[in-house]
């Protein structure tokens, strides 16, 4: 390798590492700040059990806060999203996925900040939404900012976004390997050495900041010895299947709630307030529905903390209210609620099991953790990540293998019933179908207009067949575009169609009226679809007023496809 080549590689390595550390640090600090701010608001607004018990001598105040805070929070969130976020919705992991998967424009920084603040208000005021979605978007936002810098790095944006997300997850869960895998599994959706190194650096940075510098507590600590009976793996598998079913119910409820909001509440910014009021009303009766529910999560692993009936009630309430909050426009994720509902369902299953199969079992914890991970993996479509979270938090092989069985069976079912994840469903509703792989998503974001050629034989509607025939011979083409005086495309004339026509015949009479046509918005993917059965040299491309801008030769469509796919393969397979 020559000296310039070596210098270039050293430059790339240093710069990629710096980007990973800077983005990782920013995402990690933002994640810590976000979580701390949520706790602060929860305490100040009497949402956290700790704050509520300190005010127990003022029960009226606690009850009033329970009702008013989520509703008022909803109103603030509605107004923030409506007036400050350009997209008029909370930004979430699907936006991060799209930004990393495609080269299309990502949501702006202002929208990102406003959306994150709206998420902060949502979580701070006790809405039943999750914190990991906003944290993932925060990480992606910093990655996107780094992606805009002119650093001459290949695939800079997608890698920087993955770095931010990895650091955020690593910080949030104290689980750097899970953060690394999540960024690949959910955001990049492929594994490559080029992305692997910087994303690892970012995940490790997040872990160091959270664990070493700030000494953040782990999400949960479970002491579990071992799975005592081999037949229990059948129960874990069955639990996974049931969790897939629950995930499906969750998705249905989410869709139902979104549709209700769209159909019946016209004013966008009022919707979250209504959901908040519902949360407050239910919380007067079942306080566990408020907020992220970290205490409830912890109780679910302790034998004797819940009765079966109580668990059933809280599961239903949490499912319905989370669907309501997300569907009605509170800004927040579904990962935390999925973890919570999953662990409660796991505990429920663990308590029910002795009645269904009266055999010795290994205790409640393992079933609770299996349920948590099986449901969460089905919802977010990240089986490897969830397995690794269990391993990194508990360092227990037995618990991890049990969770792995449940997660695998849950995903086997949910992949077929729901699809890869809720994020994919949300993206599909916005017109981006990632189920056919990245190729389609990226081809959808490239305009075929970028391959436009202006080497075209354009003729007037008043020309005769003889004139056109001569022009085509002179231009060495077999097709001509017939335009009116304003340049509007009226038809296409093919040489073989006018060979035997009389020379004086007006050309418009011989023009083909129904032909394939591209416009300015036609994507490369659409152009390929439209070329099915196409016979001809090139496809005309018109502007919004129907005026001819040029043509896209068939060869250019194929070239566009090959170039984009080649670039993709390079990104996925290239070494660092």
């Amino acid at each position, binding site marked *: 390798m020559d000296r310039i080549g070596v210098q270039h590689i050293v430059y790339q390595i240093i710069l990629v590492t710096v980007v990973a550390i800077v983005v990782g640090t920013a995402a990690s600090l933002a994640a810590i700040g976000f979580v701390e701010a949520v706790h602060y608001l929860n305490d100040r607004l009497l949402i956290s*059990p*700790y704050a509520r018990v300190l005010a*127990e001598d003022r029960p009226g105040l606690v009850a009033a806060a329970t009702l008013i805070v989520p509703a008022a929070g909803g109103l603030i969130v509605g107004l923030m999203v409506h007036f400050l976020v350009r997209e008029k919705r909370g930004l979430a992991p699907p936006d991060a996925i799209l930004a990393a998967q495609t080269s299309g424009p990502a949501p702006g920084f202002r929208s990102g900040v406003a959306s994150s603040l709206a998420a902060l208000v949502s979580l701070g005021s006790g809405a039943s939404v999750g914190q990991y979605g906003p944290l993932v978007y925060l990480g992606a936002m910093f990655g996107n900012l780094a992606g805009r810098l002119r650093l001459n790095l290949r695939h800079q944006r997608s890698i920087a976004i993955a770095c931010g997300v990895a650091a955020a997850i690593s910080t949030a869960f104290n689980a750097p390997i899970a953060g690394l895998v999540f960024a690949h599994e959910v955001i990049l959706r492929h594994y490559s050495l080029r992305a692997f190194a910087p994303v690892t650096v970012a995940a490790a940075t997040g872990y160091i900041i959270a664990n070493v510098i700030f000494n953040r507590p782990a999400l949960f600590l479970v002491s579990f010895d071992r799975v005592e009976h081999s037949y229990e793996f059948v129960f874990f598998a069955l639990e996974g299947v049931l969790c897939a079913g629950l995930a499906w119910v969750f998705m249905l409820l989410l869709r139902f709630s979104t549709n209700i909001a769209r159909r019946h509440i016209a004013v966008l910014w009022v919707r979250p307030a209504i959901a908040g009021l519902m949360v407050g009303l239910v919380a007067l009766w079942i306080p566990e529905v408020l907020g992220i529910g970290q*205490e409830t999560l912890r*109780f679910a692993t*302790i034998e004797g903390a819940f009765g079966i009936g109580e668990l059933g009630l809280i599961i239903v309430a949490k499912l319905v209210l989370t669907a309501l909050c997300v569907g009605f426009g509170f800004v927040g994720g579904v990962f935390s609620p999925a973890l919570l509902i999953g662990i409660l369902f796991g505990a429920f299953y663990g308590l029910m099991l002795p009645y269904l199969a009266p055999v010795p079992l290994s205790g409640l914890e393992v079933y609770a953790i299996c349920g948590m991970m099986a449901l969460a993996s089905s919802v977010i479509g990240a089986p490897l990540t969830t397995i690794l979270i269990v391993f990194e938090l508990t360092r227990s092989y037995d618990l991890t293998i049990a969770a792995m069985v449940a997660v695998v069976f849950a995903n086997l079912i949910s992949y077929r019933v729901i699809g890869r994840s809720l994020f994919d469903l949300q993206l599909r509703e916005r017109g981006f179908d990632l189920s056919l792989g990245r190729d389609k998503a990226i081809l959808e974001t490239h305009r075929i207009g970028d391959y436009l050629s202006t080497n075209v034989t354009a003729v007037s509607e008043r020309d005769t067949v003889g004139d056109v025939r001569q022009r085509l011979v002179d231009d060495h083409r077999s097709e001509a575009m017939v335009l009116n005086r304003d340049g509007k495309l009226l038809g296409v004339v093919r040489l073989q169609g006018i060979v035997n026509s009389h020379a004086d015949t007006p050309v418009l009479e011989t023009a083909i009226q129904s032909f394939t046509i591209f416009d300015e918005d036609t994507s490369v993917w659409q152009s390929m679809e439209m070329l099915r059965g196409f016979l001809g040299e090139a496809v005309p491309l018109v502007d919004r007023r129907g005026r001819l801008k040029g043509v896209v030769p068939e060869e250019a469509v194929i070239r566009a496809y090959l170039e984009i796919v080649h670039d993709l393969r390079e990104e996925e397979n290239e070494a660092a």
Partner: protein
Amino acid sequence: MKRRSLAIRALMIIGLLALSALLQAQGQSERPEVLTVVTWGGAYEDSQRRAYFEPFTEATGIEIETVQYDGGVKVLREHLASGDIEWDVIDMIQSDASTACDEGLLEPIDPQILAPAPDGTPPPEDFMEGAIHRCFITQIVFSTVIAFDNRAFPGVKPDSVEDFFDLEAFPGKRALRKSPTGLLEWALLSLAVPREQLYDLLSTRRGLELASGRLDDIREAIIWWTRGDEPVELLTSGQAAMATGYNGRFFHARAMEGAPISVIWDGQLIGFNSWTILRGTDQADLAAEFIAFATRAENMAAQANLISYGPARKSAQRRVGLHTDTGVPMRPYMPTAPSHMESAVVRDHHWYSQTDGLREQWFREWLER
């Protein structure tokens, strides 16, 4: 005649004024002879007597009289309500001091009274964080620990909070303080709840119920104690196999008296004791003078060399060495020794001071069940 009587009157007035001024001057030069300090008795009070009370008397001529106390704020309220205020300085647990301060039961303390460290470090930098408060000066770090009678377990020894609740593996009576202090934390710790989440979980009805259920498991084996020296007596007399109590008392019993007592540091509950001045005492200045004296680094270290409670200022911590009488190295017996801190629970004083009523109610209901 009239002129003579006027002269006599004038002389009488001058005489009275002179007498009054003399008496006043005499009164000013006389200092009170006794300062009343409310404290905890036993080996702890003995260590205070040797480290603070006697040196203070020697330096000022003022005697220290002590009144024994078992903690809480209720006794302060009652003492003040009696109208006859006899207490001056009170040695209080920090959460009680915080509650009493909020209720206006304590005099404010001017932090200017505190002496700098011997190397000149100003008190705010030398004292541990949060030690200097409007109404109290935190002086020691103590811990409430579980200890056991070595004779009760000749084979496998208990070594965790979970073992305290395991009557099957470690049979015998359990001595517990008759107060909702520490019980809740240990009950949840024995269920493997991480110490970081204890107070969050105990802030819920579910958490309290869970603790109640866990205490039910040992209800029949409980012996209650109220005075700090009782757990040692219960263990040494063989009445209890395991007991909760203050680490310094257990240290004293073992190191000084050779009692067969071992401490389980798992789940030790770290607490802080603070000097306070009772509202309404007519010796507030003298009380402040005593607190200034007792919180000098050399005096705090002197106490730590008599009983294993950690001083609340760094300059005093550096001076902790061998036990004054036995020559036993004191640092390994301090609750703040690094190996002991690994599983320590630092008592949440804010939570404690705000949940007094709730805890009392819970405890009463649990006892009545």
